[in-house]
């Protein structure tokens, strides 16, 4: 039966997607709030539900991703999942995976980083891996997180891309929520995602050297080609979303998605589960006559500069929301990237940024409403403060 909805936990939705994508090697280390994903996958393995697959129970995240370097280089479709401290521990290997052009797919159940230690959601962990050469996609809800997993394999394994991809889903908010979803059907997934057949792999019949060292005469070109692959990924991410829509009938945007932006004077930009809250508030304030729209950024790397310029061209003020901060710049990453995208263009629109939701602090509708009110002030009188915390507790500082 097709299109049957079922109520499951977000982690299960993702684990199911991984299963039907037919991975050959899964390697992971448990860490809150990613644990339910790897537990579900372990149960699938225990029940013999993932054929032609090995699950490696490693002793650290460092080895989790390292094992996938070997497995992916040997020609396997590979998957891992982590978050926060685990992702930070992987940092060195992340560069290695992308530099070796291995299409590993990994779910990041976004969580704050220590110190102070905190297990709740923000996006500092994945944002801190921005320059590691991984594609980074951000999901709005659990259905999208599950569907995006298949899309990530599709994009990562494209011949013109061959880059690893992170599917980022907000920890707890999405990983632990029970929502009605349509789990990916095996037959449709097989149609969408063909068998992974790499051109180059560790093959005793055709020996090749992987991971050679490059001196100053060749190193630059490796980096250049990685950037070209990121450029190629822009189109492939759009295509993966379109192809997915054709087969499964679901679409969430490609590089970005827009909500009521056509006539919007104020455009809010954000990533992840906060999108749903913003849409609610937009519906409410539009009934009060305030023209607000939303640009949801699905792909943070590659950053969709052209798509964003186009979406923001007619806005009077742009507002970015970030669950992260670059300490020492007092800006979230989205603010920095959006301002950078608009510089040297004809689009002269004020951009203001708000940092919020750090360490799992709840983001109620009134916070979004307050931000919209500040954007209205900016429309009238220009920017007073370019970047600030939206939900700072004055009584503590």
């Amino acid at each position, binding site marked *: 039966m097709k299109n049957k909805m079922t109520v499951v936990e977000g982690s299960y939705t993702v684990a199911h997607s991984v299963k039907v994508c037919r991975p050959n090697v899964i*390697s992971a280390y448990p860490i809150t709030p990613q644990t339910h994903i790897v537990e579900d996958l372990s149960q699938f393995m225990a029940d013999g539900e993932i054929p032609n697959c090995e699950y490696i129970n490693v002793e650290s995240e460092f*080895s989790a991703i390292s094992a996938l*370097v070997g497995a992916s280089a040997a*020609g*396997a479709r590979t998957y891992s999942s982590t978050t926060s401290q685990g992702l930070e521990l992987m940092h060195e290997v992340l560069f290695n995976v992308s530099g070796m052009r291995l299409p590993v797919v990994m779910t990041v159940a976004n969580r704050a980083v220590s110190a102070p230690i905190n297990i709740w959601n923000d996006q500092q962990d994945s944002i801190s891996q921005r320059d590691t050469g991984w594609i980074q996609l951000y999901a709005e809800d659990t259905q999208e997180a599950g569907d995006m997993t298949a899309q990530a394999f599709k994009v990562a394994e494209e011949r013109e891309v061959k880059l690893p991809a992170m599917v980022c889903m907000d920890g707890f908010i999405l990983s632990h929520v029970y929502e009605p979803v349509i789990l990916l059907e095996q037959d449709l997934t097989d149609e969408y995602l063909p068998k992974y057949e790499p051109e180059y792999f*560790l093959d*005793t019949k055709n020996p090749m*050297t992987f991971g050679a060292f490059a001196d100053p005469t060749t190193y630059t070109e490796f980096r250049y080609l990685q950037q070209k692959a990121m450029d190629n990924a822009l189109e492939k991410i759009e295509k993966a979303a379109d192809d997915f829509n054709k087969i499964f009938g679901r679409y969430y945007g490609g590089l970005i998605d827009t909500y009521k932006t056509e006539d919007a004077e104020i455009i809010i930009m954000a990533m992840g589960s906060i999108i749903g809250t913003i849409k609610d508030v937009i519906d409410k304030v539009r009934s009060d006559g305030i023209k607000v729209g939303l640009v949801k950024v699905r792909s943070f790397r590659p950053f969709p500069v052209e798509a964003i310029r186009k979406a923001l061209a007619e806005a009077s003020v742009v507002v970015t929301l970030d669950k992260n901060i670059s300490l020492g710049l007092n800006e979230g990453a989205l603010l920095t990237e959006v301002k950078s995208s608009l510089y040297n263009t004809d689009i002269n629109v004020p951009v203001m940024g708000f940092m919020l939701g750090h360490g799992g602090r709840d983001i109620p509708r009134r916070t979004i409403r307050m931000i919209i009110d500040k954007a209205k002030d900016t429309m009238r009188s220009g920017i007073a403060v370019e970047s600030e915390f939206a939900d700072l507790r004055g009584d503590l500082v």
Partner: protein
Amino acid sequence: MSRLAPGHRGCAGCCDAMAANFVLEAVGDDAIVVSPTGCLEVMTTPYPESSWEVPWIHSLFENAAAVASGVDAALKAMGRKGNTKVVAIGGDGATLDIGLQAISGAFERGDDITYVCVDNEAYMNTGVQRSGATPYGASTTTSPAGKQSFGNPRPKKNMPAILVAHDSPYVATTSISYPKDMIRKVKKAVDIEGPTYVHAHAPCTTGWKFDTSKTVEVGKLAVETALWPMYEMENGELSNVRKVKNRKPVEDYLKSQGRFKHLFTMDGGKDEITKIQAIADWNVKHYGLE
């Protein structure tokens, strides 16, 4: 039979090149080799050249064992395992120090890999800094002899014992100065299912400071003085020991290398040599070398 192709950038008298050749001879063509960062990796794979005629992968300094586990898992999952051997070849720093955790994980899981440590007793690739494998009294650039120092103040970490403690079915020590012994042990290691370990003592002409023609000779002296015991442990039991006939005093080994030169010139150096002799004596007793 695969060998390391000529043209690599190893020093004259390089122990790593010898070790790689012996491992390749032992494992044959149906093998995938994993190398951590180190001399062997740097000297054999300056892009776009490679000395490897078997599939070879280098990832990072500390993760060779995990990478090898991943290769093994992929071959099994995709039905390509057959008789293919997955072999990691790492230096002592990559093995005893920075890569220890990944090795522990792979051995605890029982992955079907063989790990060969080529132990030249310091970080030679970066200029002879001490490692956990540097022997007592050796002068290195980070454990130099000086007015208040006789060189490295600690004995070698006993890596084979650590892997015996992981219930490895086969742990052996050998030396690049005994090619037949090394080839036999590596061959045995790869033929045994599960995680197996061969630890090869490997004199480094650059780091130990001896003439490039003396690599094999110096390695033999380590065995003949009982400073490097050669043995096999199968399923936790000592199954074979290379006996040392007409054992030589440790001075014969120490004076062959510049890294121990200070022990023969400094006040108190004699006492230090006595301590090193005690290490050799302990080896004789512990492993039954005589």
